């Protein structure tokens, strides 16, 4: 369980890192927290010829709150940093809510939020949080900067809109609306495992009427996935068990999650419905509690 030979690079500046990626292209991999890349290399399932460790690059490890309340997270911000940040709790609470579900503390202390997004594991929490909250993803290469919309980012299993020569340097989450509530719920076989199925939900609520809804599921398809029909069923409806049950029925009907050795497709479909109800109840229960 040792990686195949590779050349290790540890550039001090973003430009140097981007140059290395430009030079080595498909044969290079960015190394952030290493919690996904290193196991793949150790199993020789990933065999990059060049590893570009971005860990020493200054300026990538901050969480910044913009004037209008948007939150920008840099490429070296660790999961654990967002779990404990008061800025994140206040301005991007869905990230903070997702974090306790992400692996274990030791892994969260190394693994990065953007690494998780860039890796694009369909059972990971952050890609679903991205789909639900619709941040702007900022990718840089030696030839320039690109802003990618959340909806365009995840292409397939471990496949994203990022090009081999790009680094995802920041993700900018829009300001959290005062009317917004959210929840992240999941079932994993053991504490800290990737989810069998999970859901990240964000609703805006006027009084007891739902004015917008974003339901993003993980572990339910080859990427994190939204279920627009269920969202539409929620918009304009009142917060109630019947409303949630109706949305859950749509979710269970529309998703066709893959089976694996840990759960059948039928189980996952059923669970997506159960989590829809539980997640929406939890999200809206919080409004009541705050009010």
């Amino acid at each position, binding site marked *: *369980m040792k990686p195949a030979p590779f050349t290790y690079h540890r550039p001090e500046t973003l430009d140097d890192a981007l140059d290395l990626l430009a030079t080595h292209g498909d044969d290079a991999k960015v190394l952030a927290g290493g919690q996904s890349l290193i196991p793949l290399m150790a199993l020789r399932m990933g065999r990059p010829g060049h590893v570009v460790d971005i860990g020493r690059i200054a300026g990538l490890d901050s969480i910044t709150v913009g004037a209008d309340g948007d939150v920008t997270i840099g490429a070296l911000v660790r999961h654990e940093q967002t779990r404990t940040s008061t800025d994140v709790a206040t301005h991007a609470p869905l990230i903070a809510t997702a974090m306790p579900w992400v692996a274990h503390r030791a892994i969260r202390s190394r693994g990065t939020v953007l690494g998780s997004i860039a890796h694009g594991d369909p059972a990971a929490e952050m890609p679903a949080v991205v789909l639900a909250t619709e941040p702007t993803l900022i990718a840089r290469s030696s030839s320039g900067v690109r802003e990618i919309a959340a909806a365009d980012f995840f292409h397939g299993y471990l496949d994203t809109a990022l090009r081999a020569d790009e680094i995802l340097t920041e993700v900018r989450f829009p300001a959290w609306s005062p009317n917004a509530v959210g929840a992240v719920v999941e079932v994993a076989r*053991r504490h800290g495992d990737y989810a069998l199925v999970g859901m990240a939900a964000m609703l805006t609520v006027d009084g007891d009427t739902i004015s917008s809804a974003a339901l993003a599921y993980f572990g339910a398809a080859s990427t994190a996935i939204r279920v627009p029909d269920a969202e539409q069923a929620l918009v304009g409806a009142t917060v109630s068990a019947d409303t949630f049950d109706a949305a859950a029925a749509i979710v269970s009907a529309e998703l066709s999650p893959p089976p694996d050795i840990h759960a059948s497709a039928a189980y996952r479909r059923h669970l997506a419905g159960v989590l829809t109800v539980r997640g929406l109840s939890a999200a809206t229960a919080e409004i009541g509690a705050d009010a």
Partner: protein
Amino acid sequence: MTAPGHPQARENRSGLVGQSVRRVEDDRLLTGAGVFVADRNPDGVLHAVFVRSPLAHARITSIDVAAARRAPGVVAVITGAEMAEMTHPFPPFLMLPGLYTPLFHALSADKVRLVGDPVAVVIAESRYLAEDAADLVDVDYEPLPTVASIAEALSPTSEPLWAKAGGNVMMDHTDTFGDVDAVFAAADRVITERFDCPRQSNQPMETRGSLVEVDAATGHLTIHNATQSSHLLRWAVAALTGKQRTTTALKRFITNKQRRRAFFAGAKQFVGTNRDGLKEQDNAGPLAQLKKDRSFLGHMNKIAVGLLGKDDYPTVKAQDIGGGFGSKGPVAREDIALAAAATSLGRSVKWIEDRTENLMDGGQAREESLTVSIAVDSDGTFRAMRVDLIIDQGAYPGFPIGAPLITKMMKVMFPGAYRWDAFEIRSRVVATNKGRYIPYRGPWANETWARERMIDVVADALGMTPAEIRLHNMIGADDLPTSMVTGPSIDETMSTKQTLERALELIDMDQFERDRVAAAASGRRLGLGIACYHEAAPGPPEFWDCIHPGTGMLTPEEAHTTVEADGSVLVYTQQMPHGQSHETTYAQVAADELGVRIDDVTIVSGDTDRTPFGFAGTGGSRGGPIGAGAVRTTAREVRRQLIESAAGMLEASPDDIEIVDGNIHVAGVPARGVTVAEVARRAADDGASGDLHGAPFEVADVYNGAGDGGWSVATHVCIVDIDLGTGLVTFPRYLVVEDCGPIIHPAVVDGQVRGGVAQGIGAVLYERTTYDEDANLQAATYMDYLVPTAMEIPEIEVHHLETLSPGENDFRGVGEGGMVGAPAAITNAIEHALGARVTTQYLPPTKILELAGVIVPG
């Protein structure tokens, strides 16, 4: 905690036994100062990597290692064919009636039989370089049809793994006790159910590993290995490696007087101690083997003559070991390949198994199908039981023991703590293209699972509660003395019924019923499960002969206790601690017996140059009864000798002398004493020096355990809480009432019980060695083979009874029981919760919701 008034309590001089004293090994292990095989990196050591088959079943048509040999840092690449020139095949060890044991080599040369089958070994300057080169080995395989399940193995058209076996059924044997047909015919009802237990894996935290050091001058091998039995490994390596021509070996034997003498002395001693056992060996086993394959005679001959012709046998040294659960008891093919490679290169070689290798072939267990029929009267009285047992032993048989011996253990234990008029078990062992089936903590445990599951099924059919039917049929004090229908005698140590009664007192059934109703209203289901068992720890004297005549000779165990000239006490044991706290518990026993402080006692284990011979190592819940018994008797004799020596110095009668905290004095007059160190120093000055270790006081003794009785028993009761939305199972309560006799160290006993229960929880809810229909391993990393963590394990209450036995050494084994009882209690609770028949041991969330009727099986 020790029962007051018991002779042991009175003789207990320092009062250490019965206390949760601070663990001796903790300082070292918790500060990272332990030394595991992986921690040893002698200068110039080479690293081995095995090239393994990606296919489950295939013929090897060619193997090209030229590119690998040329790769950077590579010192050697040895193929299966080359290895066969250097080593003997693993011979059949325990030949049983109706059994065929195939012979196999350390590496495969012609055919691969599982994903992960080693076909070559690459030896290079680093593990990295060795893995790089292993990638370059080019093997052509011609795929063969695979055998992935018991059902396929039973099919007469399945592709045989072993040509000489004539199919994939390797053993078929029926044992009958009493007139089963007649009792079945006479009973009111017969109830039958089939239970299937999927494959699990032992999964110690430390994988297997070995470092073979070669002395440049003499060629002597020193093997540092994570083994549960260092002497077994030593002899297996001596026997199977260093293959030489028979004539050469014979010549060497005949011309070496010293070796000749040593051999005959050894043989005489072996025959002397095992006369009865040897007499009882029957020929049916060897005849069954001969009928299929005569080749073992020639190999055994060559192995024996080869051993005689060797001038030097390896030394095995095992130090800290990170668990085993049975997986480090068997001798691995890799162990043999590594020793052969190191010998041929004349250089030290190391192999640390990685987790994927470990999951592929580090040892798997429990895959068994058990069809159980119970003949029962309408009032719930059990009359007879019939079992059809099939074990999937995977591709290669475990060495020295595997599925065949385990069928015998299951045969004896199946009836459990209940009264039966008759019993019959048909035992089959089949070969499939999967990992090696080996003993796993409580290797016979599925007899308890299937029986205790079945008893609930019978109770349900008769409208009785699980507790009622058990109490009605269980052997109690009034039945004593009696014996199991399968042979072993039963004395008062089989207190299973008392543990059940105590457990029932500890559960508030009315409260449970109220909780159950409340839970049902919120989409949850509660269930309560009971499981009862007894295990031989060590069992009555005839126990092993009931398993199979002659195997009783594995029981005795030797220990040495010495007092050094500085007064320190050394205890030498053949036990091989790998997490069981022997350094603490044996020191407690020895210190109490001698009257010295626990700090004065050091336990020596694992080094074949220093420790007494014994093949059993640590396993089989023997450490308390047999191992500690040997420690106790030797320490007692050392104490007698110390007192006798001191009597002269103190001018007192030995009868009046006691030893307290290392001070030897007339009872009640400590001020006029001498210390153990002073007595030892005086003896050393007078020239006393033992033959074994050169210490002034030195006692060796073989302890048999026979006559100590010794059943270890328990009842597990658990309550499960099932979320019908998610299929997740939690445990509001898990309690164990156990009786392993007087307890040496309560925290260690509780730890053993809880660890066993944790593995039982793993077995039911998390762990499965999944193969697909082509026998490809689907759970090859810890992402897919799920070992429960502390987060998944509930609080486990452990309650103790401490029934005394009539024997001399009263400690009974406790290492395995937790794992034996848990799967039955949990699956019984789940059936109770869901009201749906549970016939498999593995119940992940999907299965739970299928059973509950929430989702449709897919």
